[in-house]
């Protein structure tokens, strides 16, 4: 029976291939939306872990999460070093990581921080940062590069780089007079860390020393690198800081203390809770995409229905011959359902295969351009449900021409109508 279906389909392979193609493309879209949705989520969710609170200047919690962890957008304000010191010394706090943002290097964000960053920062499943080469920064003009920065710009250890003021990739104001030396390169993490140039807080200060309100000093008036290092490089302000607590239970308490801090308007967020807010925000878009891809699959299947119904008339002869050699009308309709099932199955299988091939191919591009790390997971339970429901819909849709063929072959019998 399967052989008969196969040969009959092969005989009409032109139409059959188009049908398979339309199902394939629609299945690709359906799965692709799902894959990208999942990888966006996991890529966001894995960007920070083990951090109990993030503290920044008063503002939206989503905004704080986005600029502090994902390097998206800018901080509305800085917070003072005194405030940071106050919370750093709080007995409930186990560790803090100060973050100072606002500069860039050839499109990559520059993060000013302390060696604590390499000690306490966790991503993914509580993994710590690992150096692929070199060491963490010790001096003001040392820098540690994220894996992607080093790879894309082709930097090696002990190379000198110049940092630009502001976050545009083609900033006019370069801190040319004070270049940094690459002392370490981090192993890839699949998070925004890969896209970051890490320097010490002192480095950030040193870079901006003797700049007046964002404008570099006149030529000849600039301090030399050695002179800069002799200055007190303790920063006056940072952008945000991450907090690890001795006990997670104290997170809410400390969050309240930060939010009601009298010296300065500050905000503290729990990263997990704020991520949830982000998901809520994205849910509408996700649902929209899902509905659209669902309709595209429906369109693909309706295309198959059209092809099957249109072919039915031409295939009356085939049906009549089969009837004359003993096939019942039931067999004839099973033949059609089988055909629909086979077409859908091939479409689903090739769509899935092609999607993975495409994802595999565009993976480097996505991680470079969007910082999106596609984990290329095997289809999960949800995909299984989606794919099998597409298959079931295909077979169900095959029921309509099968029923027509049943009626037709009952009426025609073995008589061949030309």
């Amino acid at each position, binding site marked *: 029976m399967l052989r008969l279906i196969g*040969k*009959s389909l*092969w*005989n009409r392979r032109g139409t059959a291939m188009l049908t398979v193609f339309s199902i394939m493309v629609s299945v690709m879209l359906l799965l692709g939306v799902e894959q990208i949705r999942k990888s966006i989520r996991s890529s966001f969710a894995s960007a920070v872990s083990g951090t109990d609170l993030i503290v920044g200047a008063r503002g939206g919690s989503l905004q704080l999460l986005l600029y502090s962890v994902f390097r998206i957008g800018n901080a509305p304000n800085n917070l003072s070093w005194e405030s940071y010191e106050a919370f750093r010394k709080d007995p409930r706090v186990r560790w803090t990581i100060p973050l100072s943002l606002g500069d860039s290097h050839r499109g990559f964000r520059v993060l000013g921080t302390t060696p604590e960053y390499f000690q306490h920062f966790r991503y993914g499943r509580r993994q710590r940062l690992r150096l692929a080469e070199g060491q963490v920064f010790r001096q003001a003009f040392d820098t540690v590069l994220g894996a992607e920065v080093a790879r894309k710009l082709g930097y090696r250890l002990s190379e000198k780089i110049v940092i630009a003021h502001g976050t545009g990739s083609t900033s006019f104001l370069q801190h040319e007079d004070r270049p940094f030396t690459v002392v370490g390169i981090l192993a890839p993490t699949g998070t925004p860390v890969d896209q970051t140039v890490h320097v010490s807080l002192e480095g950030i200060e040193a870079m901006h020393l003797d700049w007046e309100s964002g404008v570099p000093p006149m030529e000849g008036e600039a301090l030399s690198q050695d002179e800069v290092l002799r200055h007190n490089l303790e920063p006056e302000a940072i952008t945000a800081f991450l907090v690890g607590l001795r006990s997670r239970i104290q997170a809410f308490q400390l969050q309240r203390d930060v939010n009601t801090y009298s010296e300065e308007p500050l905000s503290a967020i729990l990263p997990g809770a704020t991520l949830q807010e982000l998901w809520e925000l994205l849910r509408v878009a996700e649902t929209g995409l899902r509905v659209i891809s669902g309709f595209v699959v429906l369109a693909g299947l309706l295309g198959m229905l059209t092809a099957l119904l249109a072919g039915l008339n031409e295939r009356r*002869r*085939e049906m009549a*011959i*089969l*009837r*004359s*050699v*003993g*096939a*019942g*009308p*039931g*067999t004839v309709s099973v033949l059609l359902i089988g055909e629909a099932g086979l077409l859908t199955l091939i479409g689903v299988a090739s769509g899935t295969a092609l999607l993975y091939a495409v994802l595999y191919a565009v993976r480097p591009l996505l991680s470079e351009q969007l910082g999106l790390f596609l984990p290329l997971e095997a289809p999960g339970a949800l995909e299984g449900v989606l794919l099998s429901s597409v298959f079931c819909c295909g077979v169900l849709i095959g029921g309509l021409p099968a029923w027509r063929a049943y009626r037709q072959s009952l009426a025609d*019998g*073995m*008589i*061949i109508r*030309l």
Partner: protein
Amino acid sequence: MAPPVLHLQHVHFRWPGGTRDLLHLPEFVLESGERVFLQGPSGSGKSTLLSLVGGILLAHSGSVEVLGQDLSLLSSSRRDAFRVAHLGFLFQLFNLLPYLSMTENVLLPLRFSRKRAERVGSSGTWIPEAERLLQALGLGEPLRNNRPVTELSVGQQQRVAAARALIGRPELIIADEPTSALDADAREDFLELLFRESGASGSALLFVSHDADLGLHFDRQLSLAELNHAASASGGPC
């Protein structure tokens, strides 16, 4: 004594909702191994009669017995099975599935009927038997070259269809204008081969055609117009 291959008694047939009988056959008997020619112009109810014999249509009243089995007593799926087990069909044109090879076309009835298959033997003997029939019907050359059925001439296609009707030695072969698309020489050849092979397998032959000239070759010639009282009573439809 064995029952006749085909026995029709007082058969009335009208289309559902129709007011007049299309067919009324008081009696028609076809004995085992007999070759009968049934002549009738198109539209005289030939196809309807063949559908009744094949059990695709059921008589309004009266009985249609094939090998002593009243077809109206069988369920529709049993009728399908019964039809392929005991009858071989041969049509006017386009008898073959274009996507199957010659041999595969011939083997089709065996795939749908265990009875026909058993009469050929174990599945290992199917292909040799199909090839033997094709050889006997003069298709040795296209068979050797494994020609697709779409490349065969009409006469060759009809001979493949004949092999399919003959395989597994059904008791009755029903041929509906199988020669109307052939030229005169091919027609004679085809009939000769059909007679030889149906004789060899002991099958009876019911041959329906509008062309009365062919009737001379048969044991018995009948005219549907004479058999069908419905048609004569009303002056015959078209």
